């Protein structure tokens, strides 16, 4: 895999100071400095080692089940009058793209000599993916999860526990993903020597956004090969992905960032509507700020207090966005759209009926924008189907009525 590709020439990838344009950096308290510095100094070297890459590739193949298929969605294509492909990350072990990153980071943690793993989770997909690799490697695992999310994502909590992880409720602040991340960071401050923090998205202090993007870059690397095989051209016209923190989008965009002809479309969660007061459309509602040690676009009050977002999908319910995406937004390299809760639900029902695939609510946000793009019949469109909808069945059933 090409996770160690040199990106230093690119104006979209991270620069040597840890910034994407004016976004990124590492706004960490001194207590975290040695850990973050250790990662920063070592991550590129470690992931460049042939032995690391061989182990990463083997686990992705034999354990995760990669490459994930690139599926030509015939009936969806007929409906939207374009050639629509689905990148089937939902078929990965554990049911989402999240595992690509946790495999990479657990191998990195082992090489750093760490004995314990912590993670944060919103919907529970990253928590499950982390608990899974910890079980695989025999490492202790603690997952922080907002107490509200614990209630609304009970099946994933049960999965984490069955996998041997300790799930700790985050009861501070708004008791959701943002606060779970705060608690994980605080845990790391209190256990700096033996613990590695597996962040689940392209957020957090440098080098996390770049490191997670690299582990997820396998998505676009496969897309290129698969498209070349199927269409004769490695580049599609559009790549569409949902964005909360933005890890599946980072993976789906990674190898296309410098291919300016490929239109990149990031879909945020509009919640009940961008201006409803219940939204998570950070690019529309946020301004430059610092969240979880990264300078990025951030939903906040005038006074700089972080605002609680809303989305029907717990995985997009985040008041910030990865610094890469803030940069893609500001430079115009990616087009930022948003889908409401209702649009996402409708898209999820539609995909289920047209293609026999029940998508995760997060991924349904990306599907929901097919109707709004000026697609031409010859356009090749790839939608990153980041996860499967099993975890969202309760919500789907509730809204079916």
């Amino acid at each position, binding site marked *: 895999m090409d996770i160690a590709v040199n990106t230093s020439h690119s104006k979209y990838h991270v620069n040597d100071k840890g910034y994407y344009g004016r976004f990124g950096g590492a706004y960490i308290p001194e207590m975290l400095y040695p850990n973050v510095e250790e990662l920063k100094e070592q991550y590129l070297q470690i992931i460049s080692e042939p032995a690391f890459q061989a182990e990463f590739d083997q686990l992705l193949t034999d354990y995760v089940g990669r490459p994930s298929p690139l599926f030509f969605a015939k009936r969806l294509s007929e409906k939207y009058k374009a050639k629509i492909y689905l990148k089937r990350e939902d078929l990965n072990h554990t049911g989402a793209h999240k595992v690509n990153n946790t495999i990479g980071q657990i191998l990195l943690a082992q090489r750093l000599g760490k004995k314990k793993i912590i993670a944060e989770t919103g919907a529970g997909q990253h928590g499950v993916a982390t608990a899974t690799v910890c079980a695989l490697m025999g490492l202790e695992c603690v997952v922080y999860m907002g107490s509200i999310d614990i209630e609304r994502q009970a099946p994933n909590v049960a999965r984490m526990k069955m996998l041997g992880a300790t799930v700790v409720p985050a009861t501070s602040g708004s008791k959701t993903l943002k*606060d779970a991340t705060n608690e994980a960071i605080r845990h790391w401050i209190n256990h700096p020597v033996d613990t590695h923090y597996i962040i689940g998205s392209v957020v957090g202090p440098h080098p996390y956004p770049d490191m997670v993007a690299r582990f997820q870059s396998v998505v676009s690397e496969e897309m290129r090969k698969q498209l070349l095989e199927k269409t004769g051209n490695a580049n599609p016209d559009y790549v569409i992905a949902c964005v909360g923190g933005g890890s599946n989008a980072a993976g789906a965009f990674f190898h296309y960032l410098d291919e300016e002809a490929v239109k990149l479309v990031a879909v945020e969660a509009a919640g009940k509507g961008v201006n409803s007061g219940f939204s998570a459309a950070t690019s529309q509602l946020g301004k430059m700020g*610092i969240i979880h040690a990264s300078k990025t676009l951030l939903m906040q009050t005038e006074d700089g207090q972080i605002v609680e977002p809303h989305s029907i999908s717990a995985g997009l319910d985040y008041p910030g966005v990865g610094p890469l995406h803030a940069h893609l937004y500001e430079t115009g390299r990616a087009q930022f759209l948003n889908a409401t809760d209702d649009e996402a639900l409708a898209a999820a029902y539609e995909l289920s009926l047209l293609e026999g695939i029940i998508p995760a609510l997060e991924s349904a946000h990306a599907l929901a924008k097919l109707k709004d793009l000026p697609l031409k019949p010859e356009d090749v469109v790839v939608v990153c189907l980041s996860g499967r909808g099993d975890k969202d069945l309760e919500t789907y059933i509730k809204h079916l009525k």
Partner: protein
Amino acid sequence: MNRIDQLFSNKPKEILNIYCTAGFPALNDTLTIMETLQQSGVDMIELGMPFSDPLADGPVIQESSTRAIANGMRVSVLFEQLKGFRDRISLPVILMGYMNPVLQFGVENFCQKCAETGVDGIILPDLPMDEFETEYRPIFEKYDLHLIFLVTPETSEARIRKIDAVSTGFVYAVSSSSTTGKDKDMGDQQAYFARLKEMKLKNPVLIGFGIKDKQTFAAACANSNGAIIGSAFVKAIENSTNLQSSIQSFVQGIKG
């Protein structure tokens, strides 16, 4: 001369710095608390600017911040409250907070307001030292504000030297690898305190995190210029029905 420097030149040891969250327990308690701290014989005051997501803080200061924000505290309100406080309070005063609210207020605007009201120093635990040096140092110097950086038991000697070189006022030594208000054994930390002392830094050193009573204060003072108490003080006043007497008895309990 900055009041912080004055203090250390007059009293090089057993400095007692008390932290309280501005706007807590009630919005307008800030000045009352500061005045009572001065009357009680405290040497320095650290005022916390509440933030919704205080990463370096434990539950006690998180909770006080949440309450202070709900009370209506914000950076602009704090500067309103601090107008004219120098008529009543002569102790050095430090503002502690996180970068984002300061960034939104505007760093230069913030420093200017600090100077206008009579604030002496700032602690911003999530401001990277490099960024301070490349972007903000001239602003802090212009307004004669000290920026105080933290060191921890995990900080390498080379980095402690660098932090000492960049810091002014004093260096804030975090007693253990933790968030604020954790009970970690002070006995284990004496070697680290002693190592700091032997390094003979250019700045005075105050020890904070986990200092909560007479014993831990004395332990911290044995190898430093003094200590900072935060969570224990916030706890002592959070449900107080008589702020003055709660504060006086808390400080008495520390100083004996």
